[in-house]
């Protein structure tokens, strides 16, 4: 690696929020720009320096054939490829199309469905190419992104926690909402990273970081039922921003 490592950011079907997280690192952005060469990051710069790149961030899910080609090129041009966000790690909210016939969706939204080319499924990049690291969350956490970038720049393999949000609740000193207030919460089956954000705001977790590494969804469902959740509510709870993550897919009744 001569000179500064080259950074590229690729966008697929997404809301831009995860790559915006890079620009939202107001305190660290200039240090980052000093540590890497921002070679291809259209949201930040119109300058595009040709690959290969040392590090690529991939945001968004794959929903069109054209995007699949772009993804393949992105993979080929990057030494390390990091998927950022629920879209890029589990297909995102737009993966709800996977549960219906996408042609029906097209008809619902567009007057001229024949103009629309789209794949039947919204899939994470990892369904198509090798992804080196995944940053969960809808959106990702700034701290985690910074940690992963720092690790990669320092030549250390990133390592992200896989445990439940409940751990973060306890660290933050938030008395459990389910226990103390009977509020339904996906925290026990959801991976940490947000710092127990929703519980800190008296709101049950809605699973935006996807399943934790030992997600016992069956046991959680028994709690949700005990709190009066209907079958429909339970299905919707798991069919959210990470609907296609295997444990949530199963808990939501499969495809």
């Amino acid at each position, binding site marked *: 690696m001569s000179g500064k490592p080259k950074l590229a950011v690729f966008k697929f079907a997404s809301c831009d929020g995860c790559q915006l997280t890079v620009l939202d690192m107001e305190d660290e952005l200039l240090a980052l720009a000093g540590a890497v060469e921002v070679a291809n990051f259209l949201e930040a710069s119109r300058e595009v320096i040709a690959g290969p790149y040392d590090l690529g961030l991939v945001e968004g899910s794959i929903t069109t054939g054209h995007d699949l080609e772009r993804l393949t090129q992105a993979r080929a041009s990057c030494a390390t490829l990091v998927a950022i966000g629920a879209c890029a790690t589990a297909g995102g909210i737009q993966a709800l199309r996977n549960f219906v016939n996408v042609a029906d969706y097209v008809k619902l939204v567009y007057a001229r469905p024949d103009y629309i080319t789209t794949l039947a499924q919204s899939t994470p990049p990892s369904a198509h190419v090798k992804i080196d690291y995944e940053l969960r969350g809808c959106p990702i956490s700034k701290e985690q992104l910074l940690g992963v970038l*720092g690790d990669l720049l*320092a*030549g*250390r*393999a990133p*390592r992200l926690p896989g445990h439940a949000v409940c751990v973060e609740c306890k660290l933050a000193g938030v008395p459990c909402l389910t226990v103390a207030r009977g509020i339904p919460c996906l925290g026990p089956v959801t991976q940490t990273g947000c710092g127990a954000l929703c519980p800190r705001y008296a709101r049950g977790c809605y699973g935006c970081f996807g399943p934790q590494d030992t997600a016992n969804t069956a046991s959680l469902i028994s709690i949700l039922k005990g709190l009066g959740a209907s079958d429909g509510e339970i299905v919707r709870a798991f069919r959210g921003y990470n609907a296609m993550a295997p444990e949530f897919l199963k808990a939501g009744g499969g495809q």
Partner: protein
Amino acid sequence: MIAMPAVPGVHTPARHVIRRRARETADTFTWELAPLDGPGARFAPGQFNMLYAFGAGEVPVSISGDPARPGTLIHTIRAVGRVTSVMERLEEGEQVGARGPFGRGWPVAEAQEGDLLIVAGGVGLAPLRPVVYHTLAHRNRYRNVALLYGARTPADLLFAAELDGWRAIIAVAVTVDSGGPQWRGDVGAAPRLIGKADFDPARATAFVCGPEVMMRFCAAELVNRGVAAERIHVSLERNMACGMGLCGRCQLGPVFVCKDGPVFPYPVARELLAAREL
């Protein structure tokens, strides 16, 4: 207001400079570390330090140097993961941290007046080298001393240059899993060497270090040959964050590997390793 004095070298790393770095095998290297804050600490064979690479993290690594020369810290490290891979890339002159020495090492005194079998597998020779140095220096305290060393291939042998020198003073037998055309020595697993070694089971003590399976087989073989289980000692490995029994990570049943071990009498280790997921 209350101050919280942390002890450098125990709670915070003590600074060391990598004075020499030598490659042992494709993935293993040896550091010679010179302390920058005062003289180096004394250590017993089998003890370990928590070594720190800036920003990358800390890992437990046994001291592989000569206990009679505590001024320099010698560590032999195999690059296997996120921290050790960063360490592998550090160069001579760079600074690192070290805390320690921690743990209970090999009970060398217990073995005196009898035969001593030093059985090592792979990188397991590193924690045993201080024992070798100790016996070389105090050869007269022991009867027969044998180093039985197994590695995967000849290229994986640690301290190859030193082995011959040791042969002049103690018995050294080496075996590899697969030798290749150049290899003239033994081929096969380490336990096989036990059968060839010259020792009196009734008066022998054995120190065994290597992969867990290898230690199990060697210990079984030693017991078979009549060595009392209590006189066999093995070294266990668990993930650890503090090295001094405060973080709870290295618990194995009721023991803390860091402070109750890493060296344990075989009967204790056998019991601990028998239960799944302990």
